């Protein structure tokens, strides 16, 4: 069984006299992996060289993931390719984050949302669905040539049942980043120090953005009001 299993995964070659039926399993396994990876990463599939992607998936199949849930395979492929770099695409990691976040958030179950108007008087926390990422490529606009620094916020919109993305500035990114592990006041203090402004100035600067995020459910009160 092991010998045939390895051949089906392409880990070892078929004998010259192997039957068509025996060989067809290698194609079926490869097709299964290619299908699920290309469905999860449609932009990657459209931008990477088809031949290179095919070769990378063929190599990935040989190490075969252990999860019984096939929908998780693209994430395994992303992690594996990050290390192997067979595709040699500088924007690979950014793009896979962008594409996988949509699936990851869609597949999670989040508590119902309590939307509120923002106020500095109460303690806020970052919603469990929020994902933050510093990007080196504008993958969210399918721009893969120019390297730079962009900041992206993603969250799950319960009402629309979609993953939302928003480009944010570095200050808001830092504030949200701190807020994921610190209190509201500590986050404000830290980001003010980094920006070299007073906390009051920072409050004024962040107010509109935080109010917007509170209405979107990205920020929620620590205690239900």
């Amino acid at each position, binding site marked *: *069984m*092991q010998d*045939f*299993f390895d051949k*089906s*995964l392409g880990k070892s070659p078929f004998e010259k006299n192997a*039957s*068509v*039926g*025996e*060989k*067809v*399993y290698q194609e*079926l*396994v490869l097709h*299964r*992996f290619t299908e*699920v990876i290309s469905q999860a990463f449609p932009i990657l599939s459209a931008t990477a060289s088809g031949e290179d992607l095919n070769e990378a998936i063929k190599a990935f199949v040989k*190490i*075969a*993931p*252990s*999860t*019984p*849930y*096939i*929908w998780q*395979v693209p994430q395994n492929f992303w992690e594996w390719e990050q290390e192997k770099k067979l595709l040699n695409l500088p924007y690979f990691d950014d793009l896979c984050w962008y594409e996988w976040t949509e699936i990851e958030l*869609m*597949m*999670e*179950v*989040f508590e119902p949302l309590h939307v509120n108007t923002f106020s500095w008087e109460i303690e806020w926390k970052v919603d469990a669905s929020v994902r933050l990422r510093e990007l080196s490529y504008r993958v969210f606009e399918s721009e893969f040539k120019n390297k730079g620094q962009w900041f992206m916020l993603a969250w*799950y919109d*319960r009402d629309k*049942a979609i993953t939302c993305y928003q480009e944010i500035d570095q200050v808001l990114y830092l504030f949200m980043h701190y807020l994921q592990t610190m209190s509201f006041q500590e986050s404000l203090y830290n980001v003010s120090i980094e920006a070299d402004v007073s906390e009051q100035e920072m409050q004024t600067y962040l107010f509109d953005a935080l109010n917007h995020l509170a209405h979107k459910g990205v920020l929620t009160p620590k205690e239900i009001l």
Partner: protein
Amino acid sequence: MNTIHGCGLGLRREFLDEISAHGFLPDWWEITPENWIVMPYHRREKFELALHHRKAVAHGLSLSIGSTDALDVDFLKTLKTFFDRYGIEHYSEHLSYSALGGAQSYELLPLPMTEETIKRVAQKVKEVQERLERPLILENATYYYIPKSTMSEREFIGRVLEESGAKLLLDVNNVFVNSVNHSFDPYAFIDSLDAKHVSYIHVAGHYDDKESGLLIDTHGRAVREEVWKLLSYTLQKMDVPVMLERDNYVPTLAEIQIEYQHMKTLYTEVRRG
């Protein structure tokens, strides 16, 4: 399957938005637990609505019952929780393997049809049944290659059912595909089965792969006329529920309803004699 009757349909996420109490509903649903255990937030309500209106049978993909690996106990616990939550009494899987040495192929691979395999599968069936507290039904799988075996498929299936006590999910399309690929008479195969071992029937489409010269069990096309004929013949031999599978190129619920109605008419006509 005492509580399931008539004609079933595979519940696919593509159908969820079309399901309503006043619209078309099959007699029962078949669901793939691996696709619903981790449920997207927005799909849960619709999934629960579908199961509120009709009973469901679970048809798994990842159990890998024929593997020499030990059963994935965590996976079985997850399955049981899911089945208990949704009141799913019946669970079917494939008489094949898909994982070995902890690695997954996500493809149903052919088992060596030997005494050793029969013993292994029978022991694992019993363990699955004990852990899930419900019977396991095994499906005859397609195979494009026969690993080193000491008996025919028919004998192998019969012995596995006998040793394990499991019932058979008879996939009529698989019988047809295998009969063409391995040159045997599908009607004689059906004749050789003991109807009391059959729990329910699958019917699905397949693909004629000109390159390999094989029929491939894709579940991505409409059921072929030859398979409808074989189903009709089979239903005359056994009074069990039947279910339509479509896993790839899934059409809308309204579109698949046409094919479902064809199956239902055929089923009803046979039952009326």
